[in-house]
């Protein structure tokens, strides 16, 4: 009986947190957010060296072949540092999808390139979950036509696109017939774009289909939930630290019950949420029968807990919490992004009900 993170997971987190503290502080995040959104090469290179990029890639293709739970705890660190890297798309979703759905040739072609750190994948999966504006695409004879919104990583080398038949396709960003529009949005750490495809050549993952897509979404939802957990924990830590420094009425504000209770409520929401996520992450590879239900609940629940913490921690900071100067809003917006991206909490709870035959 051992319900907790493994030695390996704790050491991955320790090393990664140290690297991010030193090499990707808020000033660096700010620089990324206010410039042209090109890949943060310095941070990315560090993540390649730490082995983060190859976490989910099998050893045969140059990765470390770790589990989805290992990938999830990395997501927690990146959330806590609001790190502007294409981790979810390039290191989690694409490797998992290609490993499960790709042919040997496709694995050879893409997995090693990702592990080496030279290839960035974006993901176009929003049409596969809670699609908006009737967007969607279909594939005929290796050519994709249609549209995809909220596609991650406008500067990616490839995009992984889910079509209306739940097939997954790899589209090269320099392929003909692609129209790209940037979708400016609140979270500047993870840029989005809209794509239109007109007979765009694509490479269909041979063994992809509804089951691969469903699993990949479960993994994505869980990793997004871990990202929120990390971001929310950081906001709570910052709020407590601020309250211990800030004085009003000749006392630090951390000595007022009104402030203490806000912080206690944040901790009281986050601790059980953490335990839920540990099980959801574990289930992805080790309890497949539980994975889907817990992934739905994990993302929906962290959307609620994250929103509560984001709001409350900002308020603890008073006027400073509202400023760009302090930059707390990077965490606020990161949590806001994770709440909506790939399905909001109401939609996910309905999926949880469907998974238990409580809804059709």
């Amino acid at each position, binding site marked *: *009986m*051992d*319900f*907790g*993170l*493994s030695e390996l997971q704790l050491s991955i987190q320790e090393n990664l947190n140290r690297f991010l503290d030193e090499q990707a502080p808020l000033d660096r995040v700010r620089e990324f957010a206010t410039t042209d959104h090109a890949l943060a090469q310095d941070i990315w290179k560090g993540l390649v060296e730490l082995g983060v990029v190859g976490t989910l890639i099998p050893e045969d293709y140059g990765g470390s072949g770790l589990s989805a*739970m290992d990938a999830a705890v990395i997501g927690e660190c990146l959330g806590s540092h609001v790190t502007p890297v294409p981790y979810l798309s390039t290191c989690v979703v694409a490797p998992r999808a290609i490993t499960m759905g790709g042919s040997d040739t496709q694995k050879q072609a893409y997995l090693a390139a990702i592990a080496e750190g030279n290839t960035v994948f974006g993901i176009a999966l929003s049409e596969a979950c809670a699609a908006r504006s009737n967007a969607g695409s279909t594939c005929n004879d290796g050519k994709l036509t249609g549209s995809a919104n909220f596609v991650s990583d406008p500067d990616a080398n490839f995009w992984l696109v889910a079509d209306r038949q739940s097939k997954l396709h790899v589209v090269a960003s320099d392929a003909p017939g692609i129209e790209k529009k940037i979708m400016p949005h609140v979270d500047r750490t993870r840029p989005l774009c809209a794509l239109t495809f007109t007979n765009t050549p694509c490479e269909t993952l041979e063994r992809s289909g509804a089951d691969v897509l469903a699993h990949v979404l479960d993994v994505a939802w869980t990793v997004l939930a871990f990202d929120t957990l990390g971001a929310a924990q950081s906001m709570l830590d910052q709020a*407590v630290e601020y*309250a*211990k420094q800030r004085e009003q009425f000749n*006392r*630090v504000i*951390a*000595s*007022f*019950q009104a*402030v*203490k*209770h806000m*912080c*206690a*409520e944040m*901790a*009281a929401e986050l*601790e*059980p*949420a*953490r*335990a*839920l996520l*540990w*099980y959801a992450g*574990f289930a992805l590879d*080790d309890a497949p029968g539980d994975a889907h239900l*817990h992934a739905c*609940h*994990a993302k*929906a*629940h962290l959307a*609620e807990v994250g929103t509560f913490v984001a709001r409350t921690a900002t308020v603890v900071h008073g006027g400073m919490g509202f400023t760009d100067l302090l930059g707390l809003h990077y965490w606020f917006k990161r949590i806001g992004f994770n709440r909506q991206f790939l399905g909001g909490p*109401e939609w996910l*709870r*309905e999926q*949880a*009900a469907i998974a238990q035959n*409580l*809804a059709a």
Partner: protein
Amino acid sequence: MDLSYGPQYDNYRQELRDFLESHRDKAPKNAPLKSDAAKSWQKLLIENGYTARTIPKEYGGFGGEPDLLKGRIIGEEFARAQVPGGMGGQGISMLVPTLLELGTEAQKRQFIPSTLAGDIVWCQGYSEPNAGSDLASLRTSAVLDGDEWVINGSKIWTSTAHLADWIFCLVRSEPDAPKHQGISFLLFSMDTPGIEIRPLVDMTLAPNFNEVFFTDVRVPKDQIVGKRGEGWYVANAILGHERDSLGDPNATLARMTRLIELMKEETIGNERIIDNPVFRDRLMKLQARVMSMRFNDLRVLSSRLNEADASLARMISKLQGTELRHELEGLAIDAMGETGLMYGASEFLRDGGSWQNQYMYFLGLIIGGGTSQIQKNIISERGLGMPKEPKFDSAKATEN
């Protein structure tokens, strides 16, 4: 991550299941305290190590080695079989562990075996009308007169006082000492002259509580646990046990399972409640929280087995467990609507009126055993390292 208990525990669980299967007809149903049925069931459970498992044989227990997982399996299997487990009550859950830790040999021999057997029922005399969250300001006085303490004052929220044979009671024995250092922990018979009990009916309309008044109650000097003035620390040695047991996540999970069934049975218009998207969303929202508390509990258990730090996870469990359960019971009432108002026997009642009853009862638990607000103080101070509210000096506070 390893969620299995291991093969030796699987065997233990199977033995327990066999035991429950072959003995369940002997289990008493709503047997009154001290009835033969209740006592003989208790005796059978002790002999087999399914209650009082780690209490030494010489004091009437089973004498087993401490084993968190066995304790856990016992709880799970009795709940699963819906068979009543060993006797509870404040004597067994609070006084016995206190005496084991801090009692004299004579006190252990006098009280533990008879308490475990169900021959002595205890009540707890802690809270007073003017000492609730600020328990250490209690004023019931104990003055030494020769070989006896003379006790005057009153207690409130005293569960089972009307059924109890004995009381374990906090009294102020050193009026001049700082408030936490002036308290003693006394044991005395509820038959002692000078004790008056008045029932206190709670909002569920059950006479669960009492007020207890002491007028010149004379108690032998040696019926004290710990030393004079150390009563606060004696009481605190076990208060944590009580908090841990409020808002049990496995019981909440069982209620969630029943709630889902209820929402399939009940209708509004021609629609099942479960088919109503608003109610379904509320249900799913709660389900995520119920799951979270269950995993939080597993994490706490695991941290005790593996010496990992989960202090914050443990600190939030009373606050969140009781609030969540109250909300869950409230959702069932909303799902039933007007039917949810039914209280008292009639053909219109669902589940014996348990939803209204537990909805109110858990509001009581949000307040009792350290209110939610006190829990938030504890979480912020001990869990997050935030400073205490500045205090008035104690002399000034007593004047108010």
